[in-house]
């Protein structure tokens, strides 16, 4: 197990290097720092001097990959690639364009993001699995057809509609909870409730339909027929046998997401004014603050790879046949 984990982490290194090079190419080679400076300064104030000054302030006044003028190790380290991109391997994300430390922002904003994303994920998963199980129980009846049609309808509605419609209905018409904002501590419940409910409803269509098809795949298998043949009641068959075996394909899709919950949801957070990582990213995109976007890309891919490792580990927990070596 330990050996497996170490190997997986070593596998992650080339992938992270790939991500790093890709973002570096996107942000610095396709567009030179001069272009960035021009964008940031606006059309009016562009002079060669002001561009130089902006680059110097933000540390972009170095060669891209190789510094020919420097000596020994500095040839590699005194470059934009080393200073801006490679440093992220040490979780050193540098500063955003307005001079704040990105790492500090990430740690403070993680809490609110999780406060929304974690309940949404857990409640959503439970609701979707139960709904899918009910549909599988009543398979090939009118109830099943109606349920699946309902799922397709829910899937076809834009996520933006759930947020805008829900905000309007609950906060403006019924005046139940505040429309947006966030507070820490026990008071946060009022602010978290609506985004969580909307997130659950928005995700239920696609996931229930998917889980239902997984359950139906399992129900068609031989061991289910055996279980029925020996006289087990349908509920026992569903919960003891089908649900347990269906967990394997469900886990493949679900566990990968767990680490990414830290990143928060872009749409929900920006609509509800929650100071999490999602709204941080949106603000950075709107302000064209490339250092933040770059940091978030790197963080995201790191969490994704963590998710892949977690998926493998979770297999061993639900499926005793799987051994990680």
């Amino acid at each position, binding site marked *: 197990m330990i050996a497996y984990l170490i190997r997986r982490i070593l596998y992650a290194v*080339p*992938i992270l290097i*790939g*991500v790093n090079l*890709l*973002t570096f190419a*996107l*942000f610095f080679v*396709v*567009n030179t720092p001069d*272009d*960035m400076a*021009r*964008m940031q300064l606006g059309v009016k104030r562009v002079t060669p001097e002001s561009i130089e000054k902006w680059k110097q302030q933000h540390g972009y006044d170095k060669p891209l990959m190789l510094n020919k003028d420097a000596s020994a190790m500095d040839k590699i380290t005194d470059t934009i690639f080393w200073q801006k991109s490679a440093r992220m391997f040490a979780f050193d994300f540098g500063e955003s364009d307005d001079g704040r430390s990105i790492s500090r922002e990430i740690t403070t904003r993680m809490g609110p993001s999780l406060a929304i994303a974690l309940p949404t994920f857990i409640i959503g998963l439970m609701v979707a699995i139960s709904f899918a199980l009910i549909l599988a129980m009543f398979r090939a009846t009118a109830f099943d057809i109606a349920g699946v049609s309902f799922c*397709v*309808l829910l*899937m*076809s*509605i*834009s*996520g*933006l*509609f759930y947020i*805008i419609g829900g905000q*309007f209905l609950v906060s*403006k018409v019924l005046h139940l909870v505040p429309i947006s904002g966030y507070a820490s501590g026990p008071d946060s419940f009022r602010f978290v409730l609506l985004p969580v409910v909307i997130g659950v409803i928005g995700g239920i269509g696609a996931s229930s339909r998917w889980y239902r098809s997984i359950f139906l795949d399992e129900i068609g298998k031989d061991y289910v027929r055996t279980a029925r043949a020996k006289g087990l009641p349908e509920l026992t068959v569903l919960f003891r046998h089908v649900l347990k075996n269906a967990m394997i394909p469900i886990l493949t899709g679900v566990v990968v997401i767990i680490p*990414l919950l830290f*990143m928060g949801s*872009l*749409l929900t957070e920006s609509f509800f004014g929650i100071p999490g990582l999602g709204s941080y*990213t*949106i603000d950075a*995109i*709107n302000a*064209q603050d*490339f250092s933040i*976007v*770059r940091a*978030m*890309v790197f963080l*995201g*891919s790191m969490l*994704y*790879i963590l998710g892949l490792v977690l998926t493998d580990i979770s297999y061993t927990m639900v499926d005793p046949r799987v051994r990680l070596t």
Partner: protein
Amino acid sequence: MSFMPEILWSDGLVFILLAALAVCAWYVRRHEHLLLPWRRVGQNATATVSLLVLSLFVIVGLLDSLHYRAALPENNTGETVYTPEVVSVFDKLVQPLRTQTEKTYSAPLAITLYAKESITDAQGNIMRDYPRLQFGGAHLSDVSLHDTDVFKRALLGAMVGLLIGLSIISLSLILCCVGNKDIYTQLIKIISRRGALIVATLIIAAFIGAIANLASVYHVLGTDKVGQDVLYLALKSIRTGLVIGTVTTLVTLPLGLLLGIAAGYLRGWVDDVVQYLYTVLNSIPSVLLIAAAVLMMQVIIETHPEWFNNSASRADLRLVSLCVILGITSWTGLCRLLRGETLKLRELDYIQAAQAFGVSSMRILTRHIMPNLMHIILIVLVLDFSALVLAEAVLSYVGVGVDPSMISFGTMINGARLEMGREPMVWWALAAAFGFMLALVLAANLFADAVRDAFDPRLNRAD
């Protein structure tokens, strides 16, 4: 010539896709075994109805993809000069919707503006009231007749639409029955089998008739902040959504197909490289990757203003590049599926036999493996379509979608979002955008389901 055709990048790509689709359809028609699953799709009532809805959307989208520039009135030098404004055939067809703009907000079917203004009446008195619209309901001299007029026009339009629908149906029924000996039984057979489609056609025809008749004198879905007709905006958005949903496949398909099959069939280092590529791309959160790429695209467009001779081609290039970016970020799913399936197929006996006979790899791939992957490709592409249409709205909201000057569901929602906070509320622009999007995506999803059911080999069928 009184106009000059203008082929934008996206237009060209749309018509290339259309041609490719036509070639595929012609090929499938000639091969009975390929036609069989499509027959199954055709027997599914939901699938045919959703296909009808989809094709209406596609017709609007295609008409909106034929762009041209009109000629300006003759000047004294004698040479024809064209306006810089690029319009489409669809714009020309719904000319009144496009040009009859009001001052600002007005509710659906309204004859007055949405907010009170100071009006000077004939006697010179100034009072606060709702001013009449310039175009919406301008034919009405008596305001009290408004409701009856709306009702009458809707009814008349629905009647005409119903008649047109009936004539289309009877025409196609006649075409189906021509040359058949027992016309009566044939007719009954078709009607009983196509009942849902016939009813849906009639309902949609009546609906379109009513809307069209109302739209000639009213703003059926109201007007937005600058007085543009919301119905027109929603109809224009269809093309943007369709382009994003379809042109993206031009990127995903070659990438996913080539890399997926190569990885699965050749294995070894090719497989390693392809797997590495898609893990790297997958590991970056897709919205962020798209955002990063679009931001970069924006900088490039901004620094090269000399590439574009008008604003339409600029917005269009951004649309095409968005499609390319979406394609580059979304080919991984298709690639992974095709790789897995190819890995499975290459171990089957008939492939081994072909290899033993010394058939070249190229021929094995094209003759034996590709045809067995087609159902996966089709299912994935159809399912991706609706996801892409929905993604456009989200991306435009985040600010990394289409050009703000391009009419799309995303820009409509983005513009109308803040109006929800107004008192009294302006809801129609949002409702129109979400409604049209729901119709498009729902039809696509239902159709995709039918396609998957018909093509999925796992579902064994007796027939």
